[in-house]
């Protein structure tokens, strides 16, 4: 689980900065009146938090199991 969380995290952040750096036009447009770029940023905020929840739970279960 830690490795999965780490890879997912790095893939997300690398993907986002890759898009901003090399293809910012992918962030143009809108979804139900919301700019795509904003939706992407908010989704990344949520995913970043989701990864912390996922990892914290898995790590705590792992530590309990180790005890």
């Amino acid at each position, binding site marked *: 689980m830690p490795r999965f969380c780490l890879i997912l995290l790095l893939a997300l952040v690398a993907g986002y900065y890759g898009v901003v750096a090399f293809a910012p036009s992918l962030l*143009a447009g809108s979804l139900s009146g919301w700019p795509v770029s904003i939706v992407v940023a*908010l989704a990344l905020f949520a995913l970043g938090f989701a990864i912390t929840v996922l990892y914290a739970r898995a*790590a705590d279960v792992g530590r309990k199991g180790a005890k």
Partner: protein
Amino acid sequence: MSPAAMLSILFVLLTLGVTRWAARRQGDGAMAFFTADGRLAGWQNGLALAGDYLSAAAFLGAAGLYFTSGYDSAVYAVGTLFGWPLLLILLAGRLRDEREYTLAGVLAKRFDTRAVRGLAAASSLTVTLFYLIVQMVGAGKLVALLFGLPYAAAVSVVGVLMVLYAAGGGMLATSWVQMIKAMLLFGCGGALAAGVLAVHGGSVAALFADAAAHSGQAIFLPSRALADPVEVLSLGVGLVLGLLGLPHVLMRFVTVPNARAAHRSVLWATGLIALFFAINMVIGYGAVALLPPHAELFDAAGKLVGGSNMAAVQLARVLGGAVLGGFVAAVAFATILAVVAGLALAGASVVSHDLYAGLLRRGRVDAAAELKLARWAVIALGALAVALSLAFQDQNVAFLFGLAFALAASSNFPLLLLSLFWPKLTARGVIAGGIAGIAASVGLIVAGPAVWVAVLGFKAPLFPYTNPALFSVPLAFAAAWLGSVTDRAARRAALSSSL
């Protein structure tokens, strides 16, 4: 008395009361002073981490960046936020298990040499001091602007209060100041965002349409400042990894009783910071949509009065008059105090724990003497920070912030990560990696546009990028690896111990 001054005085009285209470509850010795006896709950430490991290730059600066450059502020926010889960996965639990509250302390568990301790202490102290100077200079200007005080008086007030919190109540008081400030910040941000949405009929889509009507659709895309792909990638590396080397953040993981609570701390901090960044997005685009019709808020050159950092304060005045404006100003003041108190404590821990107890006395020091020195170190750092803030008041110190983050990412982070995860790291590797990280980050920032052109006045930079992390971080890792694998003395020692 203005609402801002009244609310700020209330905050100061409340937090000084908390400091007095904390000073009475404080356990004996430097360990208790710097770690709050490890008694904070995960949610408390998470709230304090959020309060520590969400500086005036993260609130007023980020809102101002939405106002001037639109989506760039979100690009910064994403990188900053993603440092937190990475901190959780790589460091939080391990740092708590190490029971060390400084970088030098962690490294010395494996490599207890004067050179390693000295290098780690120098790097941590430099990062903290640069960060502190930027915060103090910003604080002086902001407090002077918000409350009409002369700059020197504003800096002195901030410096004295910082010393009272940190020296008086140690980590326990500082943590509570940061928790109170975080709650105020959320109350203030929530009120502003609610006000912005109320004007737009509760519709976020209507807010974005209004912002686009004033500034065009380009406000939702990266600006020309982020046009260079290498610069963007380097910015991302620096933002994400910088957090993992900030001494005042790292030391907070020893304030909780176990690794589980350390994980909970990051979980809370990440959630709160993500929420605040989302709120700040509404505030920032609210400023884009609602400030332009108010001509009185702009000077003859079309610039916002007081600078773009005042966007949130001006928005508050537009939405809620002097009372909401005063509330935002008071929260900005509280924000500054909470952040500088945490920085002063981190700096004092390096001076008393690493330089005095570790380097000078080689661990042969009684807890009372170290505690006494810790308090004097806070006072000395406070005085130094005020003096440097006065000296730098007319200088462009923005590069110091970049330098602090670049140093943290390029020196502290690689050394910490390798010492925790790579068994083949040697003391020689630590020195090589640390020196390479420091030299590369400092050298490239000085040779880059932020110093070479903006401060020293040359026409073109020697190094084309503002953010050096894309180059300096791999260089530090490579140097640490090379220094370790070519360390014959360490190999001989390992061989003889195995025989």
